[in-house]
């Protein structure tokens, strides 16, 4: 029964990692950029949700929507201001810019509102169910269903809509897509918007589930989500979901067998192992470099 409980803990944690990892993986898939500022978009989402709930007295779903829309706009702004002009620059230049943007958002936030943490108000009524001896809160069920719902919507967008088709085309070959009449810039912006909206949703869910938010809260989840994306195969959307879940469960299991202080280390050991033995990730195909 302890294991059922631990599995629930792991999946709840993993679904948050998965939501953030989706944004990483989508952006990487389309412009081969590891957007290190993504974790900070997650933080911005958490704060927008917080102000929507505590300032305007909104409920969970309206706050979630507002945070997603605001983060989508924010993500596009970041892309247009910082990354667009570097599209033909070296990848290392873009990567360093991403780190700079990340620090700028973090410390800009501290400059605006200070570094003190904020406590998320209780917006979801919390009942606890007993399920095979495990305590499952209605909150974690809600969080899980919202995460799964968002992932399904994403799959729908990518596979069944025109913009999704354009995204897949640009990701496959940007030059050819341009020749076929696809507006590459707009497609990239749409990718940033969708990825950032998911990060914003993850921020609000994180706030509700873990209560404490602060301007540097995005750093560790951001890096963990990056590990999850690599684990699943960076650039592959189902890979990010599975990677996030696996990472959440692995971290929980490491704590459950009594090595709670090694939990963060476990995540990075996974990263190192995957980079050594299967750099393309669980879902990645081994593609040969074209000469």
């Amino acid at each position: 029964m302890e294991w059922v409980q631990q599995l629930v803990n792991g999946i709840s944690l993993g679904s948050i990692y998965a939501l953030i990892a989706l944004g990483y993986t989508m952006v990487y898939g389309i412009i081969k950029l590891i957007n290190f500022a993504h974790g900070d978009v997650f933080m911005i989402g958490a704060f927008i949700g917080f102000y929507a709930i505590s300032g305007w007295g909104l409920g969970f779903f309206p706050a979630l929507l507002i945070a997603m829309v605001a983060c989508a706009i924010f993500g596009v702004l970041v892309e247009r201001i910082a990354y667009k002009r570097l599209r033909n620059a070296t990848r290392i230049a873009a990567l360093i810019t991403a780190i700079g943007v990340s620090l700028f958002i973090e410390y800009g936030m501290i400059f605006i509102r200070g570094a003190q943490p904020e406590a998320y108000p209780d917006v979801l009524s919390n009942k606890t169910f007993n399920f095979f001896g495990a305590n499952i809160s209605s909150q974690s069920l809600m969080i899980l269903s919202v995460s799964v719902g968002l992932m399904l919507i994403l799959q729908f967008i990518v596979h069944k809509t025109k913009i999704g088709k354009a995204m897949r085309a640009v990701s496959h070959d940007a030059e050819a897509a341009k020749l076929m009449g696809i507006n590459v810039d707009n497609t990239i912006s749409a990718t940033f918007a969708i990825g950032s909206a998911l990060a914003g949703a993850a921020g609000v869910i994180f706030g509700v589930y873990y209560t404490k938010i602060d301007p540097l809260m995005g750093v560790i989840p951001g890096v963990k989500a990056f590990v999850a994306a690599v684990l699943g195969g960076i650039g592959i959307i189902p890979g990010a979901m599975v990677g996030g879940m696996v990472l959440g469960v692995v971290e929980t299991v490491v704590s459950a067998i009594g090595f709670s202080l090694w939990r963060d280390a476990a995540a990075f050991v996974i990263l190192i192992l995957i980079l050594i033995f299967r750099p393309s990730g669980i879902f990645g195909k081994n593609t040969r470099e074209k000469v």
Partner: protein
Amino acid sequence: MIAKNKLKRFASVFLASSLIVGALAGCGSKGEESGGSSSGGKDSNEIKIGMNLELSGSVASYGSSIATGADLAIKEINDAGGIDGKKIVPVKIDNKSDAAEATTAAIKLATKEKVVAQIGPAVSGATVATVQIANQQKMPVVSPSGTAPNITINEAGKLNEYAFRTCFIDPFQGQIAAHFALNELKAKKVAIYADNASDYAKGLASAFEKVIEDNGGKVVAKEAYVAKDTDFRSTLTRVKSAKPDFVFIPGYYEEVGLIVKQARELGIEVPLMGADGWDSPKLVDLAGAKALNNTYITNHYSSEDPDVKIQDFVKAFKTANSDKAPDAFNALGYDSVYWIKDAIERAGSTDSEAVKDALASTKNLTLITGNFSVDKDHNPVKTATVLEYKDGKQVFNSKVNP
């Protein structure tokens, strides 16, 4: 280089101030011939007590609270006729929450003002900086709230003879919590969940564990977290399966708030306990008032303590400070003055060495923050107060003797 500069500065201040003191002493002796005066010498009708406190800067709230408490005590003593007929004159210097400023202030108090003893600084770092001066100048230093062990015992394990403190040291709260768990809550199987990134929490945890095991209790789970973690559920699930009847969580409110909330969600309903690191209004926001029921903390004192002496103090303090209830720093500042007064009376003189010995040999002195004795390491052994959270409010629960 820095050390050299410090030495130079120290030497120049020392020289300058000894010149001034020399000049003053000259005036003083002349004055005495002509029939008594109010010079600062040790034979006058005044007892000078220095206050080297954080009155501005980052921790100004600690220093000013101590000063307010001390002022009340000095006023009470002077109104009652002073110490052996001599009035206490406080000499306040603002150390600007800075260790270097605190050192300068200590030199000034020792050499120029020739105070009998120094109260302050409030924080450990600044206190440690003044302790060297205290030892050189033979000036007793009483820190009201410096909890670091190395204030009274230096790195080499040697006693700093002139350093004292009014508050208990950190690990002491772990002992108090253990006694409370065993005697008041009748806990047999306890769990410890400590912040592994802070010396404060580790010190509390090991002191707690030792007392529990020495008194027949059993530690069934010992887990750790690192500050800034947010997910404690997996470790708490592990704690739960060990079925403890009490969980000790030394740490700071930012993580503790989340731990308490997540523990209750997972169905850990047993009493939870921590120390003064929990003491922040933010804790209630993070954990929620309901989750905090059946949790306890140790602290220096409670203004809700029904004890007559404490209620008199609360009343006097409120009268003097426009109805504000005194906090722990106010009480510690107040107690520091009464402790020095007691030592001067027992020493029968204001000679610094005699006062130092009297401070060190204090036994069973009744103060606001507890019945007070001093151990061989110059740390107080005193009563601690246990507070309970009820619907998000701290309520006085009991007093625990070590």
